[in-house]
């Protein structure tokens, strides 16, 4: 129901009593401002955590091997464990439905030479799925493919910075480079969000590397992406089972972390998830505390304001105002003030977050601090409700005072 006269009354009352309107608005605006800043900063922290793991896929798992630290089945401590294609294929067949991506990795340091320019770079020999596990971004050409693996092609995919080192601004695609004395064809150039080190890498097919460097079936590491449909707990269980199975298969003591271990992002994710959950819980606790303090603040001011206006209400009633019209007027005024003030606080908070957002990232690990639309809607509902309550309770009491008593008030 839109009643122009009612609004006119309210605006007049707000306008003629600016100080108290501003004061009651200030409490709410301040509470909302604090709430917004708090929430924004925590969401910024959460963004930082998320992006810290951004280099690799969120569902990544690594099978790593080193030396045995425990004797087992007559085998000595200090035995060097070696992964081979056998283990790679075992994992692939045994856990097919739990794996989204799978790739072997062989680490190598190589000298890459193009014309007069040469340097040493790290190289990973991989399967095609590695692109998704490492979140490699192909800038030009293509990544390693299945045909490369099958045919043991002498192709190489180089990082953006290798290209810059060797080719400068010139085209590198389909050029031949000398890698440790053999000629390789550049089929792609990539970039990576993981930083400079990641972009000074080169990739070649795992089969090519096995043939050229030792002619064996050794692999350094198995990288996996577990099926994203798995829950965190299921993914962790999968990692643990694979770890036990591989140890058994390779004659390693079941508890030998040093010999063979599965590093599982699901565990890290779970930790981060729990940490962020706890942080959000604290923020919600502190934030609602602030909001409640704000609401109590405005209720206090409304009680004072209504006491101050008791005589005015008495006059209005003597002139024929119904109690409902007085309650309605006060509540509407209160809701208006809380809503406007709340939105000022919210906008100011959002503005401040946007303003300081960039400078926080470097020093305080807070990235893109912001509040979500859900929070904004929730805060609006809280504001309107608090305005209603803050206005209604004291107004109802004031409206029920007999006019004769109200008129006597000062």
């Amino acid at each position, binding site marked *: 129901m839109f009643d122009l006269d009612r609004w006119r009354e309210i605006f007049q009352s707000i306008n003629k009593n600016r100080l108290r309107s501003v004061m009651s608005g200030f409490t709410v605006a301040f509470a909302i401002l604090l709430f917004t800043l708090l929430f924004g900063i925590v969401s910024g922290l959460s963004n930082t955590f998320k992006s810290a793991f951004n280099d690799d896929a969120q569902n990544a798992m690594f099978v790593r091997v080193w030396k045995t630290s425990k004797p087992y089945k007559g085998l000595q401590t200090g035995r060097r464990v070696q992964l081979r294609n056998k283990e790679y294929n075992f994992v692939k067949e045994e856990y097919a439905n739990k794996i989204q991506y799978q790739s072997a990795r062989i680490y190598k340091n190589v000298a890459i030479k193009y014309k007069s320019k040469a340097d040493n770079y790290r190289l990973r020999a991989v399967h095609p799925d590695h692109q998704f596990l490492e979140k490699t971004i192909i800038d030009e050409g293509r990544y390693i493919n299945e045909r490369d693996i099958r045919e043991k092609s002498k192709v190489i995919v180089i990082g953006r910075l290798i290209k810059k080192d060797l080719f400068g601004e010139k085209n590198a695609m389909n050029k031949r480079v000398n890698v440790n004395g053999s000629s390789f064809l550049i089929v792609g150039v990539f970039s990576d969000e993981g930083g400079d080190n990641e972009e000074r890498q080169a990739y070649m097919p795992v089969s090519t590397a096995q043939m050229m460097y030792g002619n064996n079936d050794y692999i350094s590491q198995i990288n996996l992406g577990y099926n994203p449909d798995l829950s965190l707990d299921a993914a962790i269980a999968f990692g643990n089972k694979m770890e036990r199975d591989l140890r058994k298969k390779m004659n390693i003591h079941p508890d030998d972390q040093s010999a063979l271990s599965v590093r599982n992002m699901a565990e890290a994710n779970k930790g981060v998830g729990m940490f962020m959950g706890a942080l959000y819980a604290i923020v919600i606790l502190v934030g609602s505390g602030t909001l409640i303090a704000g609401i109590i603040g405005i209720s206090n001011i409304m009680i004072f304001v209504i006491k101050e206006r008791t005589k005015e209400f008495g006059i*209005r*009633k003597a*002139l*024929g105002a119904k109690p409902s019209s007085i309650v309605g007027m006060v509540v509407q005024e209160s809701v208006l003030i809380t809503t406007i003030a709340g939105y000022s606080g919210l906008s100011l908070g959002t503005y401040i977050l946007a303003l300081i957002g960039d400078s926080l990232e470097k020093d305080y690990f807070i990235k893109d601090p912001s509040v979500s639309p859900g929070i904004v809607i929730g805060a609006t509902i809280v504001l309107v409700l608090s305005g209603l309550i803050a206005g209604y309770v004291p107004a109802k009491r004031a409206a029920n005072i007999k006019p004769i008593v109200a*008129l006597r008030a000062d």
Partner: protein
Amino acid sequence: MIRIEKLHKSYPMGKDSLHVLKGINLHIKEGEFVSIMGSSGSGKSTLLNIVGLLDEHDEGNYFLNGQLIKNLNEKKAALLRNKFLGFVFQSFNLISYKTALENVALPLYYKGMNRKERLKVALDYLDKVGLKDWANHLPNELSGGQKQRVAIARALVTKPKVVLADEPTGALDSITSDSVMDLLKDINNEGMTVFVITHEEEVAAQTKRIVRLKDGLIISDELTKAVKAAKAV
């Protein structure tokens, strides 16, 4: 217009109660100009508050415009006040942040009249009390007499059946008192029932009928000399 029978009113005072009105019978006809006289504590203000529906009586009957007033809730009382009664208070009771014109127009707002119309009507009434030029001034820019005249305009603007004035000259000096009383007389001459409470003899003398109260009872009820003289002729 107003008929009161065996009216009793007492106020609780801690454990005891203070019996203020002890059985008042009073009948005021339409067009009368009545003053209630009495010292403080005689119950005259209580009587006015009950007549004005600002307070409730305990016992007895009260008929306003032929309607029995009983068990009124605030909403009904507000409607009746708006329709039948106009108030003039000793302390003016203007709303401080509203201009003279807006103060006068306020009862019409509660009557549901639209803004344009009620401001026009309010201005007519301000003109009637001689304050048209002061329409856009706030109460604190007006003198006491002017404030009371604004209050009278506000009391009249809804064309009530009865104007109730509680010590209308109590806060004014004698010259402005006279001008306010002249205004009330004019209103009465136009046919409006006027009901004044006062403790000043000079004020009471300017009305047409004086009712004297003492300790919650009416001790005398007679027409003023001027009226008697006029009737004798």
